[in-house]
């Protein structure tokens, strides 16, 4: 099968034989062809988001899986042996084995939004040794997202101020009303960024939604099991098979739901912890927001 990407032959490297910085460099180089924002890509580092155009590399969601597969193609790992995720479970995770192709399993890349977070993922999964000094320079997923929202807000406010300045009459008045709302939103967001506890509380919303969804699914499972119990007593084989299928489907959905909850829980918790690298990123975006708000304020 002649895939277009075969034009670029990649020689895979053992993740245990390179530094995290080297892995990061290779990951960035590996996604070059998917990056549609060349200017941002040219200055990309470990904390540059793959997605997004304001500060990100501009990779489109249609190439999200390609990022992960590009990482898989470039590296070799000793975590290659399939072991049951839990005793008796059909699901598996990867344990120590022979050196071989790197595999990133379903959902493991959910937080790998930057090259640095991709390296962190590889460390967390045991594919390469943990390096605290490197991890100290990697912005957490929660802050990549929180700062990304701030950059977008500042950008929108600046653009709107520039547009409004050119307008006249009632159009200008309406644009000013919109600008006022945008500036107020940016100011509120700035206050949120200033306080890690408030930011963490704001991120609880998604966590609460996901928790409610998980609880709802658990109720559905209880009901499905009750139905199976009732049907088993009746001896209706066809109905039993149907409901066993339903139970299996709910269990699969529960697994998805639990994985999703772990992501939102991690984001909510991480938003409350701020290290110097996150402080620095927050300071940058807060300055951009403050500049944009000031610019909006100059419009009379």
């Amino acid at each position, binding site marked *: 099968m002649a895939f277009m990407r075969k034009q670029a032959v990649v020689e895979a490297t053992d993740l245990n034989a390179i530094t995290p910085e080297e892995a990061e460099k290779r990951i960035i180089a590996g996604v070059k062809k998917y990056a549609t924002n060349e200017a941002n890509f040219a200055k990309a580092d470990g904390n540059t988001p793959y997605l997004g155009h304001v500060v990100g590399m501009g990779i489109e969601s249609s190439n999200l899986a390609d990022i992960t*597969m590009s990482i898989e193609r470039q590296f070799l790992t000793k975590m290659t042996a399939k072991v049951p995720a839990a005793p008796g479970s059909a699901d598996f995770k990867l344990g120590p084995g022979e050196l071989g192709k790197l595999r990133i399993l379903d959902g493991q890349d959910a937080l790998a939004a930057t090259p640095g977070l991709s390296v962190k993922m590889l460390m967390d999964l045991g594919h390469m040794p943990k390096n605290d000094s490197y991890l100290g320079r990697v912005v957490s997923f929660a802050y990549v997202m929180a700062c990304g929202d701030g950059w977008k807000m500042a950008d929108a406010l600046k653009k709107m101020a520039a547009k409004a300045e050119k307008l006249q009459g009632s159009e200008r008045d309406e644009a000013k009303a*919109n600008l006022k709302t*945008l500036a107020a939103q940016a100011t509120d967001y700035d206050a949120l960024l200033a306080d890690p506890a408030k930011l963490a509380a704001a991120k609880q919303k998604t966590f609460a939604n996901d928790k409610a*969804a998980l609880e709802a699914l658990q109720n559905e499972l209880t009901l499905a099991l009750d*139905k199976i119990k009732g049907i088993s007593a009746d001896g209706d084989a066809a109905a039993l098979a149907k409901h066993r299928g339903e139970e299996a489907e709910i269990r699969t959905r529960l697994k*998805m*739901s639990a994985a*999703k909850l772990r992501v939102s829980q991690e984001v909510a918790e991480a938003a409350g912890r701020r290290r110097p690298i996150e402080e620095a990123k927050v300071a940058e975006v807060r300055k951009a927001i403050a500049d944009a708000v000031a610019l909006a304020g100059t419009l009379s």
Partner: protein
Amino acid sequence: MALTAEDLSALRRQRLLSLAFAFPVSFMVTAIARLVFRYRLPPDIARRRAELWALLDRHDGPLIWAPNHLTLIDSFLIYWAVFPLSRALDDRRVPWSTPEYTNYYRLGGPLQSAFLRGLLYLCRCIPFLRGGEDAASAAWREKAFEKCAHILREGGAVFVFPEAGRARSGWLEPERPKDFLGRLALEVPKAKFLCVYLRSERQFGSTAIPPRGDSVRVVWDLLEGARPGEANPRDVSQRLFDRLAELQEEWWKGSAMPKNCGGNDVVDLQSPLLRENFSDDLTQADPEWLDRHLTPRERAYLDAQGPAALFATFWRFFCAKEAAHKALARAGFVVPRGAFREIEVDLFRRKASHGPTGLRLDLRFTDDDEDKLHALAVLRGGYIGDEATEGDVLWRVAAVPPGQSPGAFVRDLALELAASSNDEIGSPSRLALLEEDGLPSVLWRGKPQDWSLSLSHSGRYAAASFMIS
């Protein structure tokens, strides 16, 4: 199908027994709702109940309770909300329900099952069988219908969910009425509909029960049944569904949850980056890459389409998933990045299902040619529309001018679309875009609009959509 003497005698027996136990059963329903599930009704419920009962007392005829359906305990919650304990012995007004047999009558071990059957019997339930196209199932449904009609002819009340099943999107869709209640109303023209829209404040979709401890809010209205001259069940049902849809709108006006939840996605089918994982002739694809995006069921469908349709079909799945992802995010359910398999798309039925919540969305493909593909997804808030019926979603797909940033272009496109769709706005300069939690909204007169704006760009194309409901 006429009811036999035995059927009628059984109904009479059930009515008398339920009347004998009406007070303890009503008390138990209230106690379980309040103390076990800790549900709360609005503080003004007594006043609103009194207003409703004043209307009901003026209607000296049969009554068809016609509520929306989201959870398996809706009938109990609605009874609790509408029926004051002081009316528990009002024999004619206590409604007969039609619960689905497979959901309620074979639950748990022998003791639990016997208790539930007993409770349902005392709650005047007539087991109903929705599934099954065989003669026995059809006869069962027909008999249940006859029992309901008989009760109404006698001046009683029946409780039937007009949608038949729980709304898997969490939204009552008036464009898809079911005929059962229309038929029933034509059968007993004196009957009126008691339309009820009940939902707990955090009820995101269809679940077994509402979240524990939630506040339950309800709106209702009394609607005439079959009008003189009305002979088609669909016409009666459509009128009923339209009224329920209005009550739904009223309920959502007081809700903190966003009502309109739609999304869109565009795919540039000629983009080289989209061909990366396909063979040069696009008839084969990297199976590992496909598996990262598609569920086993979707893979089976894709494989069945044959090699010639592989490329186009894959991107249909992808486009639909992305549109659904945006609609879900609007409802507060963010699909983690790369978790494409959380959403399963049924291209044949034009539906997408979200695994973790079970929410089901409607899909529609527009601007569908060899060059590009555009998909819309609607979870709730309005009708997605089809070739025959205009929906509540407006969209525009356009080519990004060379040299222009697609991100900036799609934002301008969205504002132009919104401005050109509303005479009052006129010019896009009067609008602005606001982004919150990664979701764009239109600002008009300084206020964010609940239009569920969605933006997308891919390669040479950009697309925007929003809901006008």
